[in-house]
């Protein structure tokens, strides 16, 4: 087994643990490279079909290419798509820095979906190497009744023994990609030929490295116009993956506040 085989096997193990013990469960689908890789892994884990709904936290502000992608692959992958609109910006905590508020809309949208559908498990495609706060996450991360994350007092997790049981009224976030890096994801996309939104590929010297909503995501300078070229670019870059996500940089504690409140 090479490193991608090991990562794949581990993620499949995690997905099967989650599906066997957390019911009902759903997966977040943001159409980004990570969440497409995650759906790909789920189709392998469950032998060809994804046996639970995939949830799009829809702010109405995705790029048109993203909506096209969604509509095409929900058909092709036979996905059970749940796409409820997120609450409006007026309902968001006004003390949050401006760029964080759109993200906070997603948090509200998620807790609304959890209430409405009674999910006990939410599978999200975050990775440790994306962001220092995410590096501290557990694979199975218990959330409070309103979705909040107790970063200061997380339960122990070792030997692949996950915290599967949970008090009533709470849910668990499951992170099957936690050990992957950005480069691993692209190498896996290359190996498996996983489709991605074309915005990742350079046009006129610019491409998106991390895909968020219109207005809060900025493209980077790049000539990488194919998956292989992206892999070459990543092997040498020293800039951070989420540098183009304005919400991370509002203030030092912006991302911690978002995550503590239940953001992915």
């Amino acid at each position: 087994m090479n490193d991608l085989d090991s990562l794949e096997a581990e993620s499949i193990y995690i997905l099967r643990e989650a599906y066997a013990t957390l019911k009902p469960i759903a997966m977040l689908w943001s159409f980004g490279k990570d969440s497409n890789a995650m759906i790909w892994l789920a189709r392998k884990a469950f032998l060809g079909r994804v046996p639970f709904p995939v949830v799009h936290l829809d702010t109405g502000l995705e790029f048109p290419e993203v909506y096209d992608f969604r509509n095409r692959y929900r058909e092709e992958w036979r996905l059970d798509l749940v796409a409820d609109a997120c609450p409006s910006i007026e309902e968001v905590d006004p003390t949050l820095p401006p760029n964080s508020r759109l993200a906070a809309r997603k948090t509200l949208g998620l807790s609304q979906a959890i209430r409405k559908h009674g999910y006990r498990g939410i599978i999200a495609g975050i990775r440790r190497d994306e962001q220092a706060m995410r590096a501290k996450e557990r694979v199975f991360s218990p959330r409070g009744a309103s979705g909040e994350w107790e970063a200061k007092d997380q339960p122990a997790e070792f030997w692949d023994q996950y915290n599967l049981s949970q008090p009533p009224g709470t849910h668990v976030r499951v992170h099957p990609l936690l050990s992957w890096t950005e480069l691993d994801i692209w190498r896996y996309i290359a190996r498996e030929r996983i489709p991605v939104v074309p915005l990742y590929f350079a046009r006129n010297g610019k491409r998106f490295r991390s895909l968020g909503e219109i207005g809060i995501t900025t493209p980077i300078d790049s000539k990488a116009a194919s998956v292989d070229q992206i892999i070459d670019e990543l092997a040498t870059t020293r800039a951070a993956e989420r540098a183009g996500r304005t919400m991370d940089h509002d203030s030092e504690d912006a991302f911690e506040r978002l995550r503590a409140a239940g953001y992915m």
Partner: protein
Amino acid sequence: MTAHSHDYVALRPSNERAFPIVVVGHVDHGKSTLIGRLLYDTGSLGEDRVAQLREASGRRGLDVEWSFLLDALQVERDQGITVDTTQVWFRSARRHYVIIDAPGHRSFLKNMVTGAARAEAAILVVDASQGVADQTRRHVHLLGLLGIGQIVVALNKVDLIGRDPQRVSEASEEIIRCLAENGLAATAIVPISARHGDNIVRAADMDGYGGPTLVDALDRLLPRASNLNLPFRFAVQDVYRLDDKRVVVGRIESGQLRNGDTIAFAPSGQAARVVSIETGNGVDRAEAQAGESVALTLDQPLFVERGQLAGPAEEPPATARRLRVRLFWLDAAPLAAGSRISLKLGTAEREATVLDVEEVLGMASMQTADRQEIRQHEVAQVLLGVARPLATDRHALLPRTGRGVFVRDFRVAGGFVVTDFDDAAPVEAPVELDATPGVVIWLTGYSGAGKSTLGRELVRRLSERGRAAHLLDGDELRRGLNRDLGFSDADRRENVRRVSEVARLFAEAGTIAVVSVIAPRAADRAMARTLVGPRFAEVHIRASLSACEQRDPKGLYARARRGDLKGFTGIDSPYETPVSPELVVDTEADDLATSADRLLAFVDNWLG
């Protein structure tokens, strides 16, 4: 693409897994600083990260605080302490690493374990000016339990001791002793200064030191031995139904599997031949190996379920009812002998009882304590009983299937490795199928409550109806089987244990064993329940203490009141009233005949 960037790619073989190393040691000895420095000195940091770092440090009136790279939580930065584990990636000239930072403060030991368990080697950071401290010892002991045998020691802050070779060698010797006490040895001891970057990537001119830099020492570490050549084990996660096929999914924990092999599932003991192996892309495989998540189909419709463990049919995994384990306890509330606890081993979950606490080790002091309770952050050896048999292995032989965790209040509360177990017969026949089921009916209550009288009456009535029944009476057994036992807590416990074992044998032979023994401790009764298994009923023969004292058929209460009899239940020794017995019979409210009727009705109802 420039030639330069191609060189860079060549340094990182694309199919190489990053080598995971955990950094452990006492609080403030410089773990996070060391990692920050390591990243900086190997050029692994982006410019924006360094800029952010300077800014966050400046905001708190500090120069460059390297630890902030990892300590991302606000509370960590404000208090200068790591709370939770994190990880970062870097590459040396030789290979790719994942460096896992672990907190050193004792309050966050659960997070240290979380981080360390992912590693294949450790960097033990020791402050040269302070030497081995409490958490140094604790962490070293845990590394041993977690099976992390490769340790590089970073003797940090040598700037604070003026880089004095004498003091470096004294500190080194102390560390070597500490490791040796835990059966461990360092692969290298490198004197460093994390703050100044000495001997991390760049060799510093240090008197009397001619060894490797820290990165050189890391590059010499070996990957963990593979599980490929160990016996085959497959942990069942689930069974999926696809069209008309039943597919068993799970992971190969050790060894290899070939299509066509016959495998046996424990604890059911059933065997079948593998007719297909799939790893998810719809392609059939001829074989699969340790670490792979696979989907199997079998040639027979066995009843397979989550929690089972498969092995080769000729040498199936063992099935245990009682396990001796070495555990580390993380929960704030202690684990006491007699208490019930949930455990997870592989994908199996079980309710277990702590039958005996054989040894407790306070980790920081490394002193043994003689008590029946394990407190937070202690290590202990205990005997566990599980009501339903559990498939397992000895950890020394098969680490992945010989270890597990405890769960309490929805959280992982500790970990254990299996050192030994009884090899139970591969699962008893299901209860309903047995023609003449034997059971154990345990009558508990004060002396004089009517246990022996009711027990005799019950046995008489059952025998009259042709059922095999037998009374095991506490007083009687204390004259024979248990005549070496007194009334101390330990002796009472042993009394209950022996009677339980005897009663179980009667029940296994098809007899209804009626036990009349006070068994004043709830924990001891829980132990009896575990030892007997599901065919156990606890009946509380209830009468108030004052009623019993008035009856005093044997004059014992009077003697106890006079002080002639010490440790008498209800007088100067406690009775813990059953919380959820299967039946309560009140001999104060009802007469003997009515109470006996109720008991018999209960037995009839239970056994159908």
